């Protein structure tokens, strides 16, 4: 069965998108990319440090994964747009994970700045992947301005709290006309499975893998979890019932 993820017209071989932040070294990044089987990784844009040895770009290139630069740390539409434009020039990609957050404590998206930035980046030719609140109406607005996907959070970035409002994720999925990527909040494998069972097209996670005690093992767990959730979604789960429903025959019982 062919069940490839298509983002912005590009086929990707995995529904697990990996953030590279939080890993203690490039060696760990190398290990988790291999173990996860991901085809798309996020990076951030920061000042060049000439003393740094090695480059994340070399690691990504070696694995042949596509790059999704983010605008992490940006607080305003203006900052995010400039960062996206610099990423496009540096990395030769018009894909951008748009993050415009309000403060350091919550790292929650600033919805007003986010929609403003998204609209202007789309007009500038970007393929915009917005990191957004788990708000169906905001997701709708982001699609209307031309985003190629919507990426609602399950819980705040790095919190590992899982999916705090599964109902809202289902509402976003139900009316989405672009792929839905569960982004942020995943703590362990069952969270990623739930995201896929709810109908998300992919899961984006970083800390759950890069900060796990054994990042390589957790990367493999996440790959299996995303696959399991996707298969279960396609298979169609049984309805939940208030009472038991026997699976053994109820006829032909012996009189004992």
């Amino acid at each position, binding site marked *: 069965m062919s069940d490839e993820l298509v983002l912005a017209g590009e086929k990707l071989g995995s529904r697990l998108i990996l953030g590279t932040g939080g890993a203690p070294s490039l060696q760990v990044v190398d290990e988790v990319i291999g173990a996860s089987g991901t085809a798309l990784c996020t990076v*951030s844009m920061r000042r060049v440090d000439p003393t740094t040895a090695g480059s994340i770009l070399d690691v990504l290139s070696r694995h042949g994964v596509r790059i999704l630069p983010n605008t992490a740390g940006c607080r305003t539409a203006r900052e995010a747009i400039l960062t996206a434009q610099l990423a496009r020039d540096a990395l030769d990609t018009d894909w951008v994970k748009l993050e415009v957050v309000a403060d350091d404590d919550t790292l929650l998206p600033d919805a007003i700045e986010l929609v403003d930035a998204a609209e202007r980046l789309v007009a500038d030719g970007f393929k915009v992947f917005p990191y957004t609140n788990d708000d169906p109406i905001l997701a709708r607005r982001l699609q209307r301005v031309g985003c190629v996907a919507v990426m609602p959070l399950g819980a705040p970035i790095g919190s590992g709290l899982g999916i705090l409002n599964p109902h809202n994720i289902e509402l976003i999925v139900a009316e989405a006309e672009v792929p839905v990527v569960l982004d942020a909040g995943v703590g362990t494998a069952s969270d990623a499975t739930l995201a896929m069972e709810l109908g998300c097209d992919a899961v984006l996670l970083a800390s759950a893998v890069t900060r796990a005690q054994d990042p390589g093992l957790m990367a493999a767990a996440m790959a299996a979890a995303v696959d399991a959730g996707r298969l279960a979604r396609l298979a169609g789960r049984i309805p939940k019932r208030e009472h038991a429903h026997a699976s053994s025959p109820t006829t032909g019982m012996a009189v004992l």
Partner: protein
Amino acid sequence: MHITVNGEPHEMADGATLADLVAECLRSDKGVAAAVDGEVAPRGSWPGVALRDGQAVELLTAVQGG
């Protein structure tokens, strides 16, 4: 002339271009983007961007993140 590069003071000869600055500061410009006074300076334009005294240059590249 005095240029600020990634927040640090930097001396350049008068008439130097952005390409000169990048060559002086970095071993490689692979995967690097530049902004001058808050505006993107596209990579292909660097040899033609004459720097002026007091300008602030940001040189960015991809790092682990997201």
